[in-house]
């Protein structure tokens, strides 16, 4: 097990390094965008005086290098900074209403995103693994073909298209689920679940194909191995051969794909959030980019990058743990 711990530590350190590089890239990219927060918040009213006054308030008149290190220092101390969007009117009143920190702004949105990701994962992961196993079991039959066609066409369609199809069939023609997922704090769990159902189903359609095809491929790949041949010769049923003998050895690639898709569910669902008016972190991110609320954009990017890194790390660890040969290296 000591070996596994070393690997985890190594990976964590590499992750931190990656985050650092990501932060530089993000900071540079955001600064290359035309226009800044002062101009965007003032819109048509952006007189040079007003722009300069806001820039001074927010420290945007400092050189980029200074701002980058100020921000990095803050992050290392666990302070993600002050959201421009909220700081703007805090400076009007001279008070901090408590909602001005980036963390306070992101936290509820991130919780919503995690909720949606978990609901989706709870539906999509079992669904696609079972579909994958069945497809492997009945490979090259009509069932296998149909499953492939269905999942591949759903992954190939744009997300908003799938969303509208689901809205048409499940909200407009048959009012089963609401088309508006405006969840808020203090909402009962059941209601929250009901409101999140259509976005969750849309995302399920998007992620199923990848996980299902990987499950199918990994299992079929193993079916040619001698030990499967042996199991079959023993007279085991095909289902038992797959679930008991093939699946455990196919776990590593499947876990990897699941991790990738979970990361996607956290970072890449902006379109679905917009269509269903779901108050997740994706919408906040896009809004913040639009108004150049740099601290929020940077914090979101860091969270996205951290989500990818951590989920990949988890996937690696789980593959190691699921494989005795890696757990006990010679």
């Amino acid at each position: 097990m000591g070996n596994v711990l070393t690997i985890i530590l190594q990976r964590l350190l590499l992750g931190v390094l990656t985050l650092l590089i990501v932060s530089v890239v993000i900071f540079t990219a955001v600064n290359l965008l035309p226009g800044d927060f002062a101009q965007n918040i003032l819109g048509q009213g952006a007189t040079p005086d007003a722009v300069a006054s806001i820039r001074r308030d927010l420290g945007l008149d400092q050189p980029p290098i200074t701002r980058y290190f100020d921000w990095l220092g803050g992050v290392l101390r666990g302070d993600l900074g002050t959201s421009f969007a909220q700081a703007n009117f805090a400076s009007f009143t001279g008070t901090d209403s408590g909602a001005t920190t980036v963390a306070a702004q992101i936290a509820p949105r991130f919780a919503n995103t995690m909720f949606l990701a978990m609901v989706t994962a709870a539906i999509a992961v079992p669904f696609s693994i079972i579909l994958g196993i069945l497809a492997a079991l009945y490979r090259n039959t009509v069932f296998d073909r149909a499953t492939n066609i269905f999942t591949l066409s759903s992954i190939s369609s744009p997300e908003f298209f799938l969303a509208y199809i689901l809205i048409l069939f499940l909200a407009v023609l048959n009012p089963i689920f609401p088309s508006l997922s405006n969840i808020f704090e203090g909402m009962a769990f059941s209601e929250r679940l009901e409101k999140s159902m259509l976005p969750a189903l849309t995302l399920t359609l998007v992620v199923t194909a990848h996980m299902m095809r990987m499950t199918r491929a990994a299992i079929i790949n193993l079916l040619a191995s001698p030990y499967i041949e042996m199991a079959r010769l023993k007279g085991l049923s095909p289902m038992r051969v797959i679930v008991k003998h093939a699946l455990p050895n196919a776990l590593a690639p499947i876990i990897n794909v699941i991790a990738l898709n979970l990361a996607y569910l956290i970072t890449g669902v902006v379109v679905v959030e917009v269509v269903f008016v779901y108050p997740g972190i994706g919408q906040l991110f896009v809004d913040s980019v639009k108004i150049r609320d740099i601290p929020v954009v940077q914090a979101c990017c860091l969270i996205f990058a951290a989500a990818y890194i951590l989920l990949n790390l988890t996937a690696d660890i789980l593959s190691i743990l699921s494989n005795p040969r890696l757990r006990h290296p010679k």
Partner: protein
Amino acid sequence: MNGISRRGLLKTGAAAGVLSLSGMPLRAQTRGGKLTAGLSGANTTDSWDGRTHSDLFMIASAQGTVFDSLTEIAADGSLKGELAESWEASADAKTWTFNLRQGVTFHNGKAFGADDVIESLQMHLGEESKSAAKPIVEAITEMTKITDHQVQFTLAAGNADFPYLMSDYHILIFPAGQIEEGIAKGIGTGLYQVQAFDPGVRMVATRYADHYKGDSAGFFDEIEYIAINDNTARMNALMTGQVDAINRIDFKTEALLRANPALRIQEVTGNQHYSFPMLTKTAPFDDVNVRQALKYGINRQEMVDKILLGHGQVGNDTPIGPANQYYAGDMEQLAYDPDKAKFHLQQAGLDSINIDLSASNAAFEGAVDAAQLFQASAAAGGININVVQEPSDGYWSNVWLKKPFCACYWSGRATEDWMFSTAYEAGVPWNDSQWDHPRFQELLLTARAELDSDKRREQYGEMQQILRDEGGVLIPMFANYVQAVNNRIATPDTVGNLWQMDNGRMAERWSIA
């Protein structure tokens, strides 16, 4: 104007107070129920600070629901008192005395009085102030509290429209001494009290029990505004009955909404206009002949048909629209005429001319398409327009007011003077055509202090004519406000056209059917 002349209203606002109290009941409105509306124009930057408001979501939430101003513009465009009961002007329109309503309380129980008015207005002043209402308040040289319920304003120069300006949605009345708290929590004197507010997500408010507007307004028990910036999502929410009303219908799918018997479409033409300002101090636009050639080279009707898909009306190069009092609707309409365009070019001593037109859809939806239509129609008159597509980001900082010829939009203003002094008065920062015309300027200043309504009509008529004939802003179209509501909700016969959703006051004026 219901038989009440503007002059009468202006000179003694007492009538207005009576008007608003009696409220002209059209039919008995049902009390109770909940209004859920899906509105666009919401941002994570939203707050209860009126100085920052610029789009529908916060205008409808703040002035339309939770806060009050001194005066209010009724659905028919007339002015009535809100927190002010009546007002009176001195003969030169320089000194204004406002009598405030008695027995009004803020949502935190504080009694409303003169101090609240003075302190709320002072919020807009100060060198660092970013308030859009700063020019309005800056014109006040002195604010005096006469009694607890009487305030006197002395203006730097006479302004007959002053009570109208007090209805601006930026100028909300906050509790004195608790302004910070008022902004943080949304404490106003409005019909509804904030229950929940999540910037860029939603706003919930419930009816304030003993409100001074009593039974004449605010018929719902509860209001919920949901931020839905995406057009299709807003339509879906209305179609599936999750919201009762939405603003800004997408013209392309409007027919689908119309086909639904459970919904009604409201369409009003107000002062919102799309324009192409040119800098009249920069060549070649400093030559009035070139400006006139352009006026005849643009096909206005085509733009209304193709850019607004018919949801609008042609403009006459004046920013004064149907929602204004002195709108000169009978003035002869400019029309597309390439021969006249050629003629005016020749007057300028030119056979043809090459012009760059900067456009971006940040100016208005379809601005680039409109510029290309303009390019095609102007070519027949010997005007070669080169459409320069500008990035949306930073459009208002880098293109508007900077490039000699660009696309722009204005939501218009409630009064002529307000509109002109914002964008057509010599030297003001938003004068996007560098307009400086001696006769126009003279009329602007005379009309501002004129209390006689007939004289003003004449003066504003002449100003509109000057703009049509010589002005530096092409205003090819006025865009309608198009919104939809379902049959659960009853709406009055007259819906405000100054701003979307009954001037943002649906919480006040609408009711359960």
